[in-house]
């Protein structure tokens, strides 16, 4: 997994690519924890190039969401491939995460 971190209208954008699994999710967790510590108001996670996610990747995102909410921040996911949306839906997390179609949708409140 590769993580590119950029800014877009004041939001941090995490662009992820590749597989998010037990091997790679600690790196994602480390970056999320850093920006949660910085109390960024909006964190957007770009899933367009994510090919796979397992339960450890989902657990990392749940932890990230909780961390963002703890200081009143927001975390949104966008561009999630259909087969990964299905995993969020099965886990009943599609209603927990703010899932958007595109970056433009995600930056709208």
């Amino acid at each position, binding site marked *: 997994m590769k993580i590119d971190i950029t800014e877009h209208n004041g939001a941090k954008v995490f662009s992820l690519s590749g*597989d998010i*699994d*037990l*091997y790679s999710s600690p790196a994602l967790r480390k970056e999320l924890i850093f920006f949660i510590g910085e109390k960024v108001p909006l964190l957007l996670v770009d899933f367009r190039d994510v090919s*796979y996610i*397992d*339960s*450890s990747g*989902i*657990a*990392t995102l*749940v*932890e990230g969401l*909780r961390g963002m909410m703890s200081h009143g921040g927001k975390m949104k996911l966008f561009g999630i491939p259909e*087969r990964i949306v299905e*995993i969020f839906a*099965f*886990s*009943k*997390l599609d209603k*927990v995460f703010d899932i958007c179609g595109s970056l433009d949708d995600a930056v709208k409140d």
Partner: protein
Amino acid sequence: MVVKIPSHPKYLCIVREVTAKVGHIHGINEDLVEQLKLAVDEACANVIKYAYGGDARKRIVIRYKVDRGWFEVVIEDSGVKADPEAIMGRRLEEVRPGGLGVHFIKRCFDIFEFDGKKKKGNRLRLVRYLKEKDEDRYNGA
């Protein structure tokens, strides 16, 4: 087919690739291949986390056997014995990190059972029936 990997998370991608290839070779549809890939990955990740407690120097053996009617995976380790009674995921309604892996395994496989006869370590047998009524054929095999 047998795959042996060290118990390091970086090798899980090999398990996923092999699982998907075995599925494709046997003409399993893409949706099910994705579920099988995730479920076998989760089962091996559980071996790394729980049976081996994160020790990356151990070994995991994964055996695949596919018939027209079923897809069987047997995963063996030499780690701490699992307690089948204690293996249950979190309630899906409960929003917290962790506890999802076992749900991914059980939604995909019709049989999830540990071989109680194995003296050291675990032998987890996972079976997915590929057609209706193949349960009887499998049990008679």
